[in-house]
């Protein structure tokens, strides 16, 4: 058998190569998609970790825990890059000349803390021998110029004099970005930010020396300051170790990173059992990244799977060109006494050999393609386990293709020769799919899937706060079924028309040579039909990828623009914050944005207060209203309020209702109840980051505080990046953020996916597949119509006349592939966008047709097809009639 196989390979190496290429196609497509997905998913971990300010917090279970040995042990744990001591306690402050006392939060850290954690910004002075007042405390009457502060610990045991500590005020500290300090450290509410209006920071050594002993005294409630993990609020006092974990240590896959992080948390906790509870602050980000990774895989597979399918189709079609040669070879072996079992084994051995070569070839092409598109070295950068998994899946697809090809061949080996010949003849006239009405089945399946989802609300966009979603995989089958079904249906309709028009019911003289070629094509449309199906599927696939990628980009830009709100964000870094000065002609408009803490009933519900006139001038993304009016309502009635659809649902409010809201609930001096009338419900109101549920006017809240930040619109035609640079040069005390910077810092993993790489990769592959589809048709024309060409030659037809039919069929294949494929691809894209639009905050556009990219894709497909057709025509033109006619 091996000798026979080797002999067969030596005798017909091109046949083996063609069979191998048939396998390599789907392996390459699937392999490239999987490698691309893997790379994209792996970038999500680092993306998710980037905004995490503090990875782990070891929180003492009691203030009596001696943290020094705990710290030493934690610092020794592998992957821990840095540890910092941290303590916090509720205190009551007073200052000379300030009437009454002010509740505040005391924080204690070492001076080196700010070097590791830049989100704590010392505005003036330094952490050391005194107190640094937080910016909110600085704006409290009397504390702005205070030279000393006295802090008293509340809740000490009855009969004990509350310990107090007076410290000189040494400067100001900006804690607006220090979210971990205000976040509930552990428990169900872990990560929830508590509103702390006033804060001050002292040196940890001072805290340890002067405050901690008092905290360790028996408490009023005899609780001994034990950590309450069930509490949803900040502990009254806490001793912590803030642990910085080396980001490079996290596995690149988000799911693995999440598991790893949880493991590290347990390892850290085990260092001092019972003494500390370790909270994993990275877990939420990694969980989101894990979900995003799953959705990204689904997204990529949705985009890539049709490519693998059509590649397999082309591979099978290419391999079926070998059927006739294979049949002849088997007939010869049968004549020499081979049994049907031996023939079947020989066929299987040939298939396995072609499968192995094809799979290896496909994987090489996949890796090279992804290398070229992403610029990273796949073999080197992809972990071995992922590489092996990818290879196994891709090779599995290759062997499935081989099996699909081999089954009929092995069966044929067991059939009489005459039956096989008959089947070969029949194949020219009909194909399997036409008999079972496959296209109608597929369209019905797609319709049912989409219908059920539409009916159950599965395709409806959720509110901003409910962005975590899971896509049912079967929903993604709908576009694929539609893609196949619509293409088959259109080809069937065209084929039906052609067959009817060319039916030989009565003798009709031939018209022109080209007309004759078309008439004859109508009498045996199967081969060209198959080529058109493959071409149209490939073109539809390519069009879908290109169109989807373009729409995805636009939706992504639209989302980020809505999230950011305008061209620039200006935040005062001065303490207290100051108003934005005049910014010159480069900035066309600015508008203040105030975030007002408020409560609706017992629920915290921050309000965004805007100045309607300037907001309208500045904003880059208009509000998306669900019901009621938008900015006009706010302009007409300053006490009107717009609520998000999420708030409308959660609080069962609608247009016309009145909301009784408490603003500044934690600031006794500014606390106020206001009544606001709901004038509209919005889906998105820029800026959507941070997300707010209620928007009203500055007039309604009458806040004297300066704006939290300003939005700015640059003058038409100017680059916001350049204007930002100019404004930075011209002003002081302003932090200027551009859209690009914001995207880099805040965007979710999934919407940061760059589909352009995949789009390029798969559109090129689609064009090649379409071209190969034409080449396969050409191969059939050469192989199956060799005798016809020879007969025409013997009749006296010129080369041009002989070439007319194959050229016409090739041209028809290309034209129909484009005519069917492009609209089907755009339609497929619309369905895909509808399904995957759930990922976006704003409803994405119906579809964005990238004309230039599509023209480029079409031109490339035509070029590849013309090349393939040229090879075919050259082969036909050079064919020697005599040997063919003599058989």
């Amino acid at each position, binding site marked *: 058998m091996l000798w026979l196989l080797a002999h067969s390979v030596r005798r017909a190496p091109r046949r083996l190569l063609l069979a191998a290429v048939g396998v390599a196609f789907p392996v390459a497509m699937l392999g490239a998609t999987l490698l691309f997905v893997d790379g994209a998913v792996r970038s999500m971990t680092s993306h998710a970790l980037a905004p995490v300010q503090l990875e782990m917090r070891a929180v003492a279970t009691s203030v009596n825990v001696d943290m020094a040995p705990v710290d030493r042990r934690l610092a020794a744990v592998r992957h821990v890059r840095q540890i910092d001591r941290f303590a916090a306690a509720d205190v009551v402050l007073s200052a000379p000349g300030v009437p009454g006392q002010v509740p505040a939060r005391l924080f204690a850290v070492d001076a080196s803390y700010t070097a590791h954690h830049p989100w704590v910004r010392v505005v003036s002075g330094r952490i050391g021998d005194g107190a640094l007042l937080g910016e909110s405390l600085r704006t409290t009457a009397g504390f702005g110029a205070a030279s000393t502060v006295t802090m008293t610990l509340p809740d000490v045991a009855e009969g004990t004099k509350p310990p107090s500590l007076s410290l000189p005020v040494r400067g100001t500290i900006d804690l607006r970005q220090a979210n971990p300090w205000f976040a509930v450290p552990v428990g169900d509410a872990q990560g929830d930010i508590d509103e702390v209006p006033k804060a001050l920071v002292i040196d940890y050594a001072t805290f340890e020396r002067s405050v901690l002993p008092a905290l360790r005294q028996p408490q009023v409630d005899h609780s001994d300051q034990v950590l309450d993990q069930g509490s949803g609020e900040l502990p009254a006092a806490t001793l912590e170790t803030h642990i910085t974990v080396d980001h490079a240590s996290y596995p690149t896959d988000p799911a693995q990173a999440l598991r790893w992080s949880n493991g590290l948390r347990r390892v850290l906790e085990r260092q001092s059992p019972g003494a500390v509870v370790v909270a994993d602050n990275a877990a939420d980000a990694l969980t989101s990244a894990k979900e995003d990774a799953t959705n990204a895989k689904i997204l990529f597979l949705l985009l890539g799977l049709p490519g693998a399918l059509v590649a397999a189709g082309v591979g099978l079609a290419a391999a079926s060109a070998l059927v006739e040669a294979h049949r002849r070879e088997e007939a010869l072996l049968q004549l020499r006494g081979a049994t049907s079992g031996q023939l079947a084994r020989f066929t299987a051995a040939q298939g396995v050999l072609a499968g192995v070569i094809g799979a290896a070839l496909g994987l090489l092409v996949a890796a090279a393609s992804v290398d070229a598109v992403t610029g990273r070295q796949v073999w080197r950068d992809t972990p071995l386990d992922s590489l092996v998994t990818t290879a196994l899946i891709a090779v599995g697809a290759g062997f499935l293709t081989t099996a699909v090809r081999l089954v009929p061949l092995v069966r044929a080996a067991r059939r009489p020769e005459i039956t096989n010949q008959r089947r070969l003849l029949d194949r020219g006239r009909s194909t399997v799919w036409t008999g079972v009405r496959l296209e109608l089945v597929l369209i019905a399946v797609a319709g049912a899937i989409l219908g059920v989802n539409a009916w159950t609300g599965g395709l409806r966009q959720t509110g901003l706060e409910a962005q975590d979603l899971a896509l049912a995989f079967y929903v993604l089958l709908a576009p694929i079924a539609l893609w196949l079904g619509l293409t088959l249906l259109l080809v069937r309709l065209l084929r039906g028309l052609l067959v009817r028009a060319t039916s*030989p*019911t*009565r*003798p009709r*003289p*031939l*018209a022109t*040579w080209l007309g*004759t070629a078309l*008439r*004859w094509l109508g*009498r*045996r449309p199967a081969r060209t039909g198959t080529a058109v199906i493959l071409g149209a599927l490939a073109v539809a696939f390519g069009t879908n990828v290109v169109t989807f990628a373009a729409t995805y980009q636009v939706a992504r830009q639209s989302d980020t623009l809505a999230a950011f709100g305008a061209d620039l964000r200006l935040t005062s870094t001065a303490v207290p914050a100051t108003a934005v000065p005049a910014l010159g002609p480069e900035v066309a408009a600015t508008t203040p944005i105030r975030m007002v803490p408020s409560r609706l009933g017992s629920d915290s519900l921050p309000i965004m207060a805007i100045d309607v006139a300037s907001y309208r001038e500045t904003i880059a993304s208009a509000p998306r209203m669900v019901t009621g009016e938008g900015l006009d309502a706010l302009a007409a009635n300053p006490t009107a309020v717009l609520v998000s659809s999420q708030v409308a649902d959660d609080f069962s409010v609608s247009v016309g209702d009145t909301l009784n809201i408490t603003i500044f609930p934690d600031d006794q001096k500014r606390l106020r109840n206001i009544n606001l009338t709901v004038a509209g419900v919005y889906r998105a109101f820029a800026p959507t980051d941070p997300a707010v549920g209620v928007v009203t006017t500055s007039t309604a809240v009458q806040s004297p505080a300066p704006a939290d930040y300003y939005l700015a619109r640059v003058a038409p035609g100017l680059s916001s990046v350049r204007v930002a640079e100019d404004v930075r040069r011209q002003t002081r005390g302003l932090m200027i953020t551009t859209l690009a910077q914001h995207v880099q810092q805040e965007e979710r993993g999934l919407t940061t996916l760059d589909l352009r790489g995949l789009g390029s990769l798969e559109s090129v592959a689609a064009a090649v597949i379409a071209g190969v589809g034409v080449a396969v048709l050409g191969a059939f024309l050469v192989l199956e119509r060799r*005798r*016809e060409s*020879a*007969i*025409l*030659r*013997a*009749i*006296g*037809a*010129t*080369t041009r*006349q002989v070439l007319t039919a194959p050229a016409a069929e090739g041209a028809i294949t290309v034209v129909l592939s484009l005519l069917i494929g492009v609209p089907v691809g755009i339609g497929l894209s619309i369905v895909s966008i509808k399904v995957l639009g759930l990922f976006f905050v704003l409803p994405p556009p119906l579809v964005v047709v990238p004309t230039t990219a599509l023209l480029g894709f079409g031109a490339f497909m035509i070029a590849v097809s013309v090349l393939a057709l040229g090879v075919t025509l050259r082969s036909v033109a050079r064919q020697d*009639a*005599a040997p063919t*006619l*003599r*058989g």
Partner: protein
Amino acid sequence: MATEQPAVEAIALTRRYRAGGQRVSGLDHVSLTAARGEVVAVMGPSGSGKSTLLYLLAGLDDPDDGCALITGVDWRSVRGRARDRLRLHACGFIPQGMSLLPQATAAENVEVPLLVGGVGRTERRDRTAEILDRVGLSDSAAKLPDQLSGGQQQRIAIARALVSRPAVVLADEPTGSLDSATAEVVTRLLVGAATEQHAAVVLVTHDPSVAQLADRVVNLHSGHLDPAALEDDRSGGTN
């Protein structure tokens, strides 16, 4: 029989092939003529060079030595389009086995040479109908080849070879796949129609009964013409 320039003429035709790495002779200095209206049967065992001779005469193959002339034109002097045109107008060729275009109806198969030759639509229709009538297949004009019997298919092939009124009809085993009775009918049709059109016929056959219908029979053995058979012999059949 021939009184004018031969319709087809082979002069010392030699054709060699490569087989198993060696040059073997397919035809060796074979000379033959056929005049208009003359029917020549070429007989010989398999591999004797009969078909090789026919393809050289049809200009579908080139000799290594010698020359083949059709209506006085040496095939070597015409190339490309001119060669195609010469074959179209001067030569009707009937290949061995299934020689019809499977996707074309009987009428279309017959009409193809006229379309190739640029004959007008009306004339094509008339001539096609006329020749189909002559071969007795007017009723089968709209049928596809696989709807016709073997004999009918060969009659269509003959009609196609004759429709452009060539000077020579070259037929390679035109009755090879037919039973003897049908074979005789088909051959008589070919000979009769060609004679009526004053065309020379060179037909290759294994069948002595077919050869009997020829004006002259020549025998080929291992690429050489058998000298004993070069006489004008209506009885043919000498093998």
